[in-house]
């Protein structure tokens, strides 16, 4: 997923959200979660101390985080997979793709394999263009097969 000019630039880090996810910098960190922070807008953030370094993890909008019961991971040992980035403020950030809770094996998933945010709605639930609702299917209501249907040509 590529950042574009319409993304929110997060204060402090300067990271583009939600488009700042870069597949080329995807990595895994492991450590204890602390300092969960819910901003007024933008992604829920928390810290993961790995021993040598501390990453600020950018997760998802609050409603999505809340539905996944994200606050429950405070103090837990987790493995975070995501896109690493060095912020403008000199801190290490990770845009989370998924968080695996080591004690239970449960995974909180925030993004698809290609980094597309799972909380994005829209007409293509599979993420593909041309899915259900695509204007290419030829019906104003977004269904049909392009050339058929009652009274539609």
């Amino acid at each position, binding site marked *: 997923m590529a950042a574009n000019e319409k993304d929110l630039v997060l204060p402090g880090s300067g990271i583009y959200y939600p488009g700042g996810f870069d597949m080329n910098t995807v990595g895994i960190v492991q450590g204890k979660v602390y300092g969960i922070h819910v901003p007024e807008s933008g992604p829920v953030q928390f810290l993961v101390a790995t021993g040598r370094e501390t990453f600020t993890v950018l997760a998802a909008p609050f409603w999505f985080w809340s539905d996944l019961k994200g606050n429950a991971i405070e103090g837990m040992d987790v493995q975070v997979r995501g896109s690493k980035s060095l912020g403008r403020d000199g801190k290490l950030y990770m845009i989370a793709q998924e968080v695996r809770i080591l004690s239970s094996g449960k995974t909180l998933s925030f993004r698809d394999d290609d980094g597309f945010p799972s909380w994005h709605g829209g007409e293509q639930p599979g993420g593909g263009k041309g899915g259900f609702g695509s204007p290419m299917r*030829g019906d104003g209501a977004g269904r049909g097969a392009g050339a058929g249907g009652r009274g539609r040509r």
Partner: protein
Amino acid sequence: MTQKKIFLLCLAAAMAIGFSYDARAEWEIGARTAFDSNVNRSVNNRDGDFLVTAYAAYSRQPSGETRLDWTLRAIVEGAAYADYSDLNYAATMISPGISIAINPQWNLNISPFAQAKGVSDSDQSAMAYGVRASLKQKWNKALYTGQYYTYTDNNANEDVYSYSENAVGVFVGVKWTPAFFTEVGYEYSHGDSFRTVSTSTVLTTPTGRRGYHRGYSQAYNADVYSETVDRNAISINAGYDFTKSFFTLLGYTYNREKGDFDTLTYHTGFLGLGYRF
């Protein structure tokens, strides 16, 4: 339908587009070539035809940053038929809506829509209004499903081409790779539908047993009548993204319309190329 109504709808679509440029706005242009095995909706003399359609669409998708968001879709399209040139048309559609993320997996969208369509055979030019409600589920990273209901009230210049329709449908999709997906869908609808019957048949078949009878149509070179039908449609679609913006879509639908007097079956298929930006 008046030219003024079409103009006002186009203007409304353009204004909506202009006022809604934001984070999840997308444009799409594309073209498709399609085949309809019974383009004249004939009971006894079906005729197939190819058509080419070009379209430009604007959509404002929910950002997902909040549970409740609004959506907008506007489409302008035009189509040309290989043989049935009287069916060539231009159309514009606008559809605002609301989107509700029920939970991370379930999403509900409710969108009223209005469509203006100008057809070379002006009897078929129409204004349509309706509403669509769709519910979608993502079960995992690959599998998704959906259900929808659509009500359409289509008011054509000639009543025989007007219809109101209630449709419900379901679909199942699999995203095999980030670039390739397939979908299978089923739709049931109940509403009015026009059919054509060749003049020679009319001479031997009492038209009084049929539904609303309009008379002779030059576009189809046949008599036209309408009746209330139940339609069942099964569709298969496959899409592939060549790049982040450039994609193709292939689709096929089998349709069966059963009325009090006649049953029609026909096949439609299309191949399209699109570009999003």
